[in-house]
């Protein structure tokens, strides 16, 4: 039995997993009904949509880290429009938000450049030496923290996860981890401390910066602001793009 166990496992699982045409058709019927009722949602890639093959050619020929490469990165960033209107759903209501482009150029070649659109009517962006922080404008000083912070570290999301988790668990009662594709492909750590209207919520997205490091994107808000500030921050995060 020992010799054949691996073979037997394969046979047993293949027998047990029903891959009959009927089952597959039944699953497909459910998929088709859903995708037909809601068409594919296109991710915003303004430079490709607006500039087609020229932009694609620029991307394909990019050699980052060299002078010509930096010129290419600069030209890619120039293809992002300075402002755009973004439709979002806030507290169940659809609205259109005017957003401004922030160019997250890094001085350090080991870090990645990025761009993000932020809601300039409601938030302001403050660049510090090692991070960008988007904070709510005219925010009362005694209100719970509301901000979106973007910084980078030279470790992969996998390497950072345990350390960040153990830090978060010190101050937040509920902590959950999952891999997500929305609003950004990442490891998502969701933390909440209590169920009152003003209980703090922290959401950390660990995003590979494609240079063996990570973007650590942290949203801070409070329970009652989940559908407001939380939704707006997620909408901003959907525009986050690494450009080198």
């Amino acid at each position, binding site marked *: *039995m*020992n010799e054949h*166990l*691996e073979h*037997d*496992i*394969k*046979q*047993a*699982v*293949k*027998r*047990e*997993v*029903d*891959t009959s045409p009927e*089952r*597959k058709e*039944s*699953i*497909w019927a*459910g*998929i*088709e009904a*859903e*995708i*037909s009722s*809601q*068409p*594919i*949602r*296109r*991710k915003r*890639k303004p430079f490709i949509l607006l500039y087609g093959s020229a932009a694609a050619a620029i991307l394909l020929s990019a050699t980052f880290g060299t002078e010509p490469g930096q010129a290419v990165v600069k030209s890619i960033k120039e293809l992002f429009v300075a402002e755009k209107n973004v439709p979002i759903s806030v507290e169940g209501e659809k609205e259109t938000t005017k957003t401004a482009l922030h160019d997250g150029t890094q001085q350090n070649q080991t870090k990645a450049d990025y761009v993000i659109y932020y809601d300039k009517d409601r938030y302001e962006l403050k660049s510090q030496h090692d991070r960008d922080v988007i904070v709510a404008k005219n925010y009362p000083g005694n209100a719970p923290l509301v901000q979106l912070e973007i910084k980078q570290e030279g470790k992969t999301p*996998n390497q950072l996860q345990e350390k960040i988790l153990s830090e978060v668990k010190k101050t937040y009662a509920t902590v959950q981890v*999952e*891999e*997500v*594709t*929305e609003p950004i*492909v990442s490891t998502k750590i969701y933390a909440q401390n209590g169920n009152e209207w003003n209980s703090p919520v922290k959401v950390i997205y660990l995003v590979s910066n494609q240079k063996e490091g990570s973007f650590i994107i942290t949203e801070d808000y409070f329970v009652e602001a989940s559908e407001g500030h939380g939704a707006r921050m997620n909408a901003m995060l959907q525009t986050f793009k690494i450009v080198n």
Partner: protein
Amino acid sequence: MEKKVLKKIKKGDTKAFRSLYDHYIDHALVVAYGILKDKTDVNDAVQEAFIRVFRNIHSYDESKSFKAWLSRIVMNECYRLIEKRKNVVSIESIADSRSVTEEDGEDEDLTRAIEQLDEIYRLPIVLKYVEEYSLREIAELLEIPENTVKTRLFNGKKKLKEHLEKVYAEEELT
């Protein structure tokens, strides 16, 4: 995955998506089986996973393995379902569970042994011996070190052997 098919899917071509579905559905079902015990749940998780693939196809990084990306989405859906159904006992799952009869042979014993394995062991076993992932691929997918994958495979097979030995010993007594 073929770039032509991907391009068509990004434009919302459901026929192209159907060809992708046909190509990967068996794999998705096996991965979901590695985590979930109930057939209805497997169907639900796989269905939802493919819907997410269609809706988020633009976020797929073409430089990486599509199979691994799909597997990750299937796994996430399975875990989401587990969380959702934590306190619910499905009547179907009670009806589906069956007792071993004298007609059930060694194969059925192994099948039941695999079903009873914790997902922490069952998923790597299914990925390795059914889907023929390498240790490195499993480690990347599950985001654990390769040595941990080896340990889980070893312990999973050990548990299967122990379960089967126990069953045979009980049968000899009866």
